[in-house]
């Protein structure tokens, strides 16, 4: 267990590296979903403006 | 030709043109783009005189000496064709080893010694568990498991008669 966290003495390099990559993964998911939601909202507004909405 | 075929020719032309331009630029600037020079290039005088440059190669087995009572270390960098003695005062990187790759930044002294102010360890692309490394060492009697393999491209290779190509 201790060996795992200390990564043989390289912990200060290994764990930040994993953190940055995990952040990239999470950011991509959040970013993409937000972009899709925004596009849907814009499309809804465009349709409403033209009176073609619900 | 049809507009589409013309666009295809244009796109291919762009890629081809940029490739050729890039290749020409890189080969024309090779001297400036060179990240490090190997010992043969140093010995044959290819390195611009009087400037700081990087020397890359392998640390000759058994060449590492520490001057007693000082922080200075001396070792020899080789590309299995020529050798350059190096003097360095400072802490060597963790992965610095005899028989392993090294890139040193510094300048040549008139006496033919390379005085380095920075030494970087260059390691190869082989990864293996310690047990495998030990059994390879036992089988081949070398201190580095991969020393029996052909030197990898990109690391200094045993030199054929000097060519004008970079690596």
């Amino acid at each position: 267990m201790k060996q795992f966290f200390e990564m043989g003495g390289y912990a200060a390099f290994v764990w930040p590296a994993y953190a940055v990559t995990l952040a990239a993964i999470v950011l991509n998911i959040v970013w993409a979903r937000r972009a899709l939601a925004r596009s849907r909202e814009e499309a809804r507004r465009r349709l409403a403006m033209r009176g073609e909405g619900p | 030709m049809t507009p589409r075929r013309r666009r295809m020719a244009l796109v291919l032309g762009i890629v081809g043109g940029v490739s050729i331009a890039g290749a020409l630029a890189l080969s024309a600037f090779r001297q400036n783009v060179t990240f490090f020079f190997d010992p043969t290039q140093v010995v044959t005088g290819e390195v611009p005189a009087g400037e700081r440059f990087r020397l890359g190669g392998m640390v000759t087995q058994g060449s590492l000496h520490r001057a007693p009572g000082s922080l200075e270390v001396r070792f020899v960098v080789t590309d299995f064709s020529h050798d350059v003695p190096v003097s360095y005062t400072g802490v060597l990187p963790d992965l610095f080893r005899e028989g392993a790759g090294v890139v040193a930044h510094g300048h040549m002294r008139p006496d033919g010694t390379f005085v380095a102010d920075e030494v970087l360890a260059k390691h190869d692309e082989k990864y293996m568990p310690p047990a495998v490394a030990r059994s390879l060492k036992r089988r081949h009697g070398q201190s580095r498991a991969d020393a029996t393999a052909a030197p990898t491209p990109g690391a200094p290779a045993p030199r054929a008669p000097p060519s004008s190509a970079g690596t």
Partner: protein
Amino acid sequence: MTWTWFHRLGSPPYVYALAARLTPWFAWPAALLIVGGLWGGLVLAPPDYQQGDGFRIIYVHAPSAWMSLMVYTTMAVAAAVGLIWRIKVAHAVAASCAPIGASFTFAALVTGALWGEPMWGTYWEWDPRLTSELILLFLYLGYMGLRAGLEDTQRSDRASAVLAVVGVVNVPIIHYSVTWWNSLHQAPSVMRLAKPTMAASMLVPLLMMLLGFTLFFGAVLLVRLRGEVLSRERSASWIREIVNA
């Protein structure tokens, strides 16, 4: 046969629906492979004879670097298709790729620096591979900047596509830099024609991570693509159905 399929891919409503259907098929296998690869790489794989546990950075650095190149290539191919065949959906694909590629190029550079400091003795050197990878990041940012800067969708599609195509020359440069020139970065361990230079126990988690990241790219691309396709459609009744769903 193939051409009907190809032409259907040019139809925005078809692509939108297809992307929505396909996403879980990429997302779930990606999640499994990445979790499995992390377990294999951090726990199961033995330490390296030279670098000890420090070598485990490879399980995030190599997949990130692979992503930076693979995504750019995808982006450039999509951009070329968009330019040659004048297909809007192709430009939408390219636009979707850019932020994904940029973020993993950044991750590759940072994880590489964190790996370089203990193993080489420096966070950064202007060696051929590192320098060309940094240029790749600027290419991505340039592509995104061009898109953001040009108002008219058609102009921004074309201009950014030209940049993407011009920049694709950098991809083989990055990959072959370590064999063409003297460099600090070592030669490829996996992406090579000869046998991999890695013990199997270390290689398997890496392959899982590489495949997992690739599928992850597919999933994120599909989500972004839907947004891009939506934002390009002015009228069309199919939008009404989507929006009211």
